[in-house]
């Protein structure tokens, strides 16, 4: 008999609110957080808008916020989301439980590079008329102008390390970066660590921001972002015929995964059960999903098999739904291949229509929305879905939220580079 894994706490910092209730209320109301980029001057970039976290105050979540002044927002968002999740789970007090049996698995991105110093260093070390820089001089310039403390905190092990340090989670750790699949993969693999008995509790999820000059530049160069600059709030339009790319967001989500008997023994409030996980690779292309959804199909089918469920048992699908041409068509094909006739009956929605794409943090925040919907008997809409795409002909819950009672739900996350993850969550029954 394998160990069962339940969810006993959730927390989120998102463009649509700095708590799970605020996030879910915004989702049900169909509100969007997309607007002009304010983190830097992006007015001349091909894309000038994003879904930003506003008015974030770390001091509301940790006792010593100044300690994290030089950290990246990935660490700062993660700390706040973790504090919420551990508080809800009743595990915030470090004297609670065996902390060596509690670990961290974070899907997180790179820290933020110091764009201004890199750019001025490179330019200052160029001879007039040269196309390349003098590396010796540029490196020396950076050494004199960068802030060492800030740079150290941008290391990729720091966000997960700070969670373990701040909240005294001394058990197993991991941290992955599989682009847009990262936090879902973190949750699936963390659940496996609980199933195998390596840990009893895993704080799992993701944190990310790429709303930086180099992040927006990189995605713009790949022409992956929507360029609907005249109408940012309608730019994220998953499954709509006129979609033209994704809208970048930022934020963090963390959930507490706990072994069932451990949760019962301490009388924890069980929010849902994590019943299924599937993980595959497309082995197709660097940037494009397999057009037939081959890897996505196997991830969904594996997650259902892992949950010991049939397709018809699934009452809601939270789609990856990025609003790119390729993803939404391939995902729709994949859902049809796995669910057959049921594909046309099951409500499907894309949280990204309102939230934007939180990249490494997308999967966990969408799973949190799914679990909240499972408990509330409601599913958020896909907003901006106005012009049907003949290739996307399923029920995407257009425009307005819907009351739906369901016992089991599937959440998809597909990463740039071909990593596909599907998670199944179920209403908890003894």
């Amino acid at each position, binding site marked *: 008999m394998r160990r069962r894994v339940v969810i006993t706490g959730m927390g989120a910092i998102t463009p649509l609110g700095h708590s799970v209730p605020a996030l879910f209320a915004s989702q049900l109301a169909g509100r969007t957080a997309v607007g002009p980029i304010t983190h830097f001057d992006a007015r001349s970039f091909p894309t000038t808008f994003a879904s930003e976290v506003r008015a974030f105050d770390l001091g509301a979540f940790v006792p010593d916020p100044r300690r994290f002044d030089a950290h990246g927002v990935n660490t700062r968002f993660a700390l706040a989301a973790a504090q919420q999740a551990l508080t809800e789970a009743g595990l915030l007090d470090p004297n609670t439980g065996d902390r060596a049996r509690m670990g961290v698995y974070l899907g997180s991105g790179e820290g933020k590079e110091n764009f201004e110093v890199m750019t001025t260093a490179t330019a200052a070390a160029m001879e007039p008329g040269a196309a390349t820089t003098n590396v010796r001089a540029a490196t020396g310039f950076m050494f004199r102008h960068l802030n060492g403390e800030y740079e150290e905190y941008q290391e990729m092990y720091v966000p997960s390390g700070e969670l373990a340090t701040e909240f005294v989670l001394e058990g197993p750790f991991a941290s992955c970066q599989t682009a847009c699949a990262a936090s879902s993969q973190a949750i699936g693999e963390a659940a496996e660590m609980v199933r195998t008995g390596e840990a009893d509790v895993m704080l799992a999820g993701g944190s990310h921001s790429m709303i930086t000059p180099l992040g927006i530049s990189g995605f713009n160069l790949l022409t992956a972002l929507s360029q609907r600059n005249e109408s940012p709030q309608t730019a994220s339009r998953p499954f709509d015929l006129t979609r033209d790319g994704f809208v970048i967001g930022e934020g963090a989500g963390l959930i507490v995964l706990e072994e069932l008997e451990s949760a019962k023994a301490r009388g924890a409030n069980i929010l849902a059960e994590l019943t299924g996980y599937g993980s595959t690779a497309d082995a197709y292309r660097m940037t494009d999903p397999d057009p037939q959804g081959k890897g996505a199909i196997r991830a969904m089918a594996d997650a259902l098999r892992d949950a010991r469920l049939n397709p018809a048992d699934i009452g809601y699908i939270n789609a990856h739904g990025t609003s790119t041409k390729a993803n939404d068509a391939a995902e729709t094909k994949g859902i049809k291949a796995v669910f057959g006739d049921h594909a046309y009956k099951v409500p499907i929605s894309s949280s990204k229509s309102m939230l934007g794409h939180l990249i490494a943090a997308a999967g966990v925040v969408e799973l949190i929305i799914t679990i909240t919907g499972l408990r509330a008997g409601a599913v958020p809409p896909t907003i901006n879905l106005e012009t049907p795409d003949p290739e996307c002909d399923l029920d995407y819950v257009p425009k307005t939220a819907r009351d739906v009672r369901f016992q089991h739900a599937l959440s998809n996350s597909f990463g740039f*580079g071909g990593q596909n993850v599907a998670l199944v969550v179920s209403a908890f029954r003894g």
Partner: protein
Amino acid sequence: MVTSPRRLVLTGFGVLSPIGSTADAFWDALVAGTSGVRTLTLTDCAELPSWIGGEVQGFAPRTLIEKSYRKTLNAMGRTVELGVIGTQLAMQNAGLAKGTVNPQRIGVEFASLMGSTDLNDFAEAAKIASPDGKTVNYEAWGRDGLSKITPLWMLRHLPNMPACHGTILFDMQGPSNTQIPGDPAGLIALAEAARVIRRDAADVMVVGASEGRISPITVCRYNMYMEMSRRNDDPAGAVRPFDRTRDGTVTAEGAAVFTLEALDHARARGATVLAEVVGYASGVDRGCKGPGLARVIRGALAAAGITPADVDHVNAHGTGTTTGDAFEARGIAEVFGRDTPVFAPLSRFGNLGAASALIELACTVLALKYGAVPGTLNHTDPDPACPVAVHTGAPRPVAKPYAVKVSYTTMGQCAAVVVRRWE
């Protein structure tokens, strides 16, 4: 604690390193006591305090990459190139040509970090945005600068790209993940790959790591916040693990890639086994005090079902940093005392970061295979603050069947893996 009928073995190995870029050359250099630490050439670091490190000599991805994939090299930064070629070498060594395993039953676990951009990737854009080299005009960058940068720029540096290219090149459709928690990342990847095979989600996992971090930004950053050796005039003597005169580490690049395979699968196809993976554990030692690391090592021994007396040697991270070595030695000593020899292979080639744990593990895997443990370089004046018995000098015979590999980050994230000699 983790019990499963599925035994796990390492069957293939590929390496690109400062002391050799074939498995044989790598082993020969280990036996000979060669150092791969030299003056850095990939980046001119003359204006930095430390300008020595380990570089892969004569790395020629264009001649090494599968012909059909050569044009994709323009989408690969150095970290990605090293990882992809390393994967090719491991698959060749394992006898796993594309199509010899059901694609759905083979996956990949890589360890890598964000590869820092080469400054010249955007030199022209930088000049446009900052004609005076003092301030940045974002408007000019967005309007005129962006078009001077290759469209594939970001793909050259994303951490998951070595794994991604590996899946495409070898049609690996099983789970694919990339671990990023610093120096122990390779051991975390190995543990996760073991978990994947044990839950029967794959029969074979490529477990690899690569770092191409001798780039201007990276070496500059490390010089700011890592303790880097200033022994620029004596590169080979610079990294002095657990030695009283140690003054820091040096950075290095390379790749180490294994194939991890279910024993039943390896046997069925007649594969040569390098070593068995029998236990692993990870955990956090807050404040890098020592007992947390000891707890992790004991966890790995318990998972393997062995005691410290069964262990031939401990393969330490041994970076040559003042506080790092003392911390690591305290943790190891708490479990092993001075009874078990400690081997710190990083003294030979420098710190490969996310690729460090697997290339260091490789030294032990080869030691078990050949029955001899190479010595640690530059440990001549034992530091009382590091109460472990460091193995130095000529290779010593392997006397016991098990070895333990340890790694950690400066935030106290520790991992340990136990491997067993294959007989």
